[in-house]
């Protein structure tokens, strides 16, 4: 029997996280109750940091892409860079979760978080449709449970069920599409599908469309976004934090990889399809966000509109577009994690869901969180002094360069609309006072939450830092983008 050689270094980020997950799960059983949370969280934090470091090593030692394990996985800088982003996000999410008041299931929570991270890390290095589906299901299953983990809250269970059904449907569509593509080409590997090159095959095109739709569910691009607001709102805030940044980053990169490596000859068709997704996501995400009162829901719609911006980079179908996407992911992940972390802080303080009203006076009462939230909101709106500006600029440049100037105009108009709700958050934080609305923290001020503060601080640092140090990040993104055949 033929056994493929295993490149353990390439797999090491995944393995590190799986290991951490296993230890955390054991901790749930054998560590005494009073130190269970700290042990589980600590181990998983170490796991994420280790995974980030190992992915960094892989990035450094992989000048050219290598196919592993009989063509089922790939070791390249694109995957490694995304793994770094995912692992750092995961580590920050652990800090955000640290002080969450959860009655039980601490060990399971962190174990699932690490397992989901491992799945994503595996997912982004998929090189054939089988591993792609495997990775997708791996992290999705973990997320379904994580979303429903707060069993004492009805919304959490509801969100979990919704996510399970809609997500399951998305996966099924993806699988069905993969079957069509396999039927049309007889191949599973991305490069082999491209090489088989059966142009104008109806099954291939149907498969392409279904794979695109399946991945669009995961990046929560409209019109495949229906689950996003409910799940983001209902899930425990720390889980939302993880999903909004990590799931989106992983699925975006995989979408880019699949489209660019497996379907380069059909680019005329999928570029149009992606451009349509861009327009619907930008329009619907931004308009619906205007009507939201619940901050998590508002941020959910905002994340749909950001999916639109990132897809614009994919629609550009160029190396420049890939660079723009990878750059965009850095400030976006930071802003998204940071914004949900501030919401988590407010939620813990008030002990109830955070609406715009309950942000009133936050800017003056908690100056650090206020300024941080202000930074994230301005960053998402693309203001200067945050990486959000360069994210938008690079995406627009890539789209303009590919001749899609109308997408640029659409993006500009969408940004103008988005200002209304981003600035509305700032308005509630600074221009209303809690006295006027009689808000009082339930049970007095909460104890200082240093891990969360560190997480928010790190997010601010990345958001602002990616503005001033845009070139180093872009250099890394350029290296990573060169792994793709443009």
């Amino acid at each position, binding site marked *: 029997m033929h056994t493929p050689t295993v490149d353990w270094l390439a797999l090491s980020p995944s393995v590190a996280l799986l290991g951490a997950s296993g230890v955390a799960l054991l901790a749930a059983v054998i560590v005494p109750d009073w130190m269970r949370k700290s042990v589980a969280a600590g181990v998983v934090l170490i796991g994420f940091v280790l995974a980030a470091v190992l992915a960094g090593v892989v990035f450094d030692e992989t000048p050219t892409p290598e196919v592993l394990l009989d063509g089922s996985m790939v070791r390249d800088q694109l995957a490694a860079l995304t793994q770094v982003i995912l692992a750092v996000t995961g580590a920050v999410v652990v800090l955000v979760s640290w002080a969450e008041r959860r009655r039980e299931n601490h060990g399971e929570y962190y174990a699932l978080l690490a397992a989901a991270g491992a799945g994503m890390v595996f997912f982004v290095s998929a090189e054939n449709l089988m591993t792609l589906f495997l990775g997708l299901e791996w992290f999705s299953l973990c997320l379904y449970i994580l979303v429903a983990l707060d069993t004492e809250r009805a919304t959490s269970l509801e969100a979990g069920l919704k996510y399970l059904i809609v997500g399951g449907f998305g996966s099924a569509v993806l699988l069905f599409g993969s079957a069509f593509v396999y039927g049309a080409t007889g191949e599973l590997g991305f490069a082999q599908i491209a090489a088989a090159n059966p142009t104008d095959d109806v099954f291939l095109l149907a498969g392409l469309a279904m794979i695109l739709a399946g991945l669009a569910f995961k990046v929560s691009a409209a019109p495949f976004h229906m689950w996003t607001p409910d799940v983001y709102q209902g899930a425990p805030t720390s889980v939302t934090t993880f999903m909004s940044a990590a799931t989106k980053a992983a699925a975006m990169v995989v979408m880019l990889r699949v489209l660019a490596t497996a379907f380069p000859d059909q680019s005329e068709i999928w570029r149009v399809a992606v451009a349509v997704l861009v327009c619907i996501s930008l329009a619907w995400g931004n308009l619906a966000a205007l009507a939201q009162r619940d901050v998590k829901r508002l941020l959910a719609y905002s994340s749909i509109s950001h999916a639109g911006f990132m897809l614009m980079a994919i629609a550009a179908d160029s190396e420049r577009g890939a*660079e723009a996407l990878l750059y965009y992911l850095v400030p976006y992940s930071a802003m998204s994690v940071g914004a949900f972390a501030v919401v988590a802080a407010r939620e813990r303080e008030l002990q109830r869901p955070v609406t715009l009203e309950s942000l009133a006076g936050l800017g*003056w009462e908690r100056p650090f969180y206020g300024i941080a939230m202000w930074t994230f909101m*301005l960053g998402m709106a*693309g*203001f*200067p*002094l945050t990486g959000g*500006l*360069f994210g*938008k*600029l*690079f995406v*627009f*440049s890539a789209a*303009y*360069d590919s001749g899609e*100037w109308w997408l*640029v*105009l659409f993006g*500009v*108009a969408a*940004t*103008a609309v988005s*200002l*209304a709700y981003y*600035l509305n958050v*700032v*308005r509630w934080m*600074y*221009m209303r006072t809690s006295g006027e609305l009689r808000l009082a923290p339930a049970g007095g001020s909460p104890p200082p939450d240093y891990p969360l503060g560190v997480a928010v601080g790190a997010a601010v640092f990345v958001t602002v830092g990616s503005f001033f140090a*845009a*070139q180093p990040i*872009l*250099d890394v993104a*350029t290296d990573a983008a060169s792994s793709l055949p443009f």
Partner: protein
Amino acid sequence: MLTTALILLPIIGALVVAVAPLTRTTTAGLALLVALMEVGLWIVAASRFDFDEGGLQLGTSRDWVESLGISYSVGFYGFSLWLTGAAVIVSAAAIGYAMWVGRDRPRAYHALMLFLTGAIVATFAAQDLLLFYASFEAMLIPLYILVGVWGGARRQAATLAFVVYTMAGSLLMLAAVVAFGVTQGTFSLLESGTSDNVWIFLGFAVAFAIKAPLFPFHGWLPLAYREAPVEVAAVLSAVVSKTAIYGFLRIGLPKFPEPADDLSGVILVLAGAGLVYGSLLAFRAPDLRGVVAYSSMAQMGLITLGIFAFDDLGLDGAVLQSAAHGLISASMFLLVGMVEHRCGTGELASLGGMARGRPVLATVVMVAGMIALAVPGSATFAGEFLIMAGVYDQGWGYSVVVALGVVLAAMYTLRVISAILHVKPGSAVRDEALDLRPGELALVLPLLLVLLVLSAWPALVTQSSFPGNNAAQSIAEAFK
């Protein structure tokens, strides 16, 4: 280095003011000190500046995002140095005024004011389109909070209108910046060539027209100028509006010679319409701030006429008028604030008779008013006359419009002066309302003194705004 220091000093000052645990007065005092140091630094920069030499001076350039051709490059030309000078002086006066009235939450307030100053200076110094865009946008961040938190009763409506208008313009400009930068392969204003794309020019022109504001893009102006804290309104009308002038002079004209020429007819007509319309609105406005606000809009129309005259006289006049209007508009707003502070209202109908027993106030208001209405011999008269002469070549009708604007300016300014100082004592004027205090005098007097210097010697600005005192040619050569 000096230019960078000029940008960074207020921003670092802002950070220090924001976090330093000082008392109210010390915080404000520290902010004022930083603002005065900024003025000092500007004087140093001006003294090192060689006005006879062409090209960029005091420049620094470093790569920022190499792969797209974005750089941090800053520096000054004669005209931008003068605009910056007016900006730092006005900012210092505004911060001093805020200290005098003791704004609430002083750490946040003064930090934002200093940050605003830094963003304005960066806008005037920017030699890279993206840096320009970033600084142009960065001005909006503190302004949003300054108006929204410390403003008057209808501050939220005011901020909303202000932000919606300016961001609509800014985002059009972002699209234009992307299109121009990607086509040219560089965002540097020093390295890029010219473009004949009308749409890209329009993206910039509309953004500048909103920021100025020019007719018919002035919808945000009345609310914002009325509801903003008075010293913020001073900075808005005196300085922030001038970033649009800088944009026209540094980007609009040199980078888009053909589109600017093609559209000059439309822009001249709109600018002329804005001049007359703004003056009429100023004449009809029922309150002090309304008069100053609309007069500011009229003046921006006038300056735009000078720019699109495309000749030496008009351009020199536009720069002189920008500096002079900045100073006079700030003085007027601060005086308005002082009157409002005493009477609790700016309604002209309830004011009057304040000259009696308040000689200092009367004198200062009179002097400022005389300069504002461009009495012959004043710096504003010199500016208006240059613009009138410059725009004559584009059509004598424009000169008539400018002349009309001068007459209307006299009418609305005299109306305001008499409404404050003369006629019967108004219902809101109490006998015990004080004359100007020394502290207040110390804020307005420096502005007026600078204006008197410019009145005595307008050539200080006009002869040194453009290299070789050859404005039209420098613009045509894009300051190469």
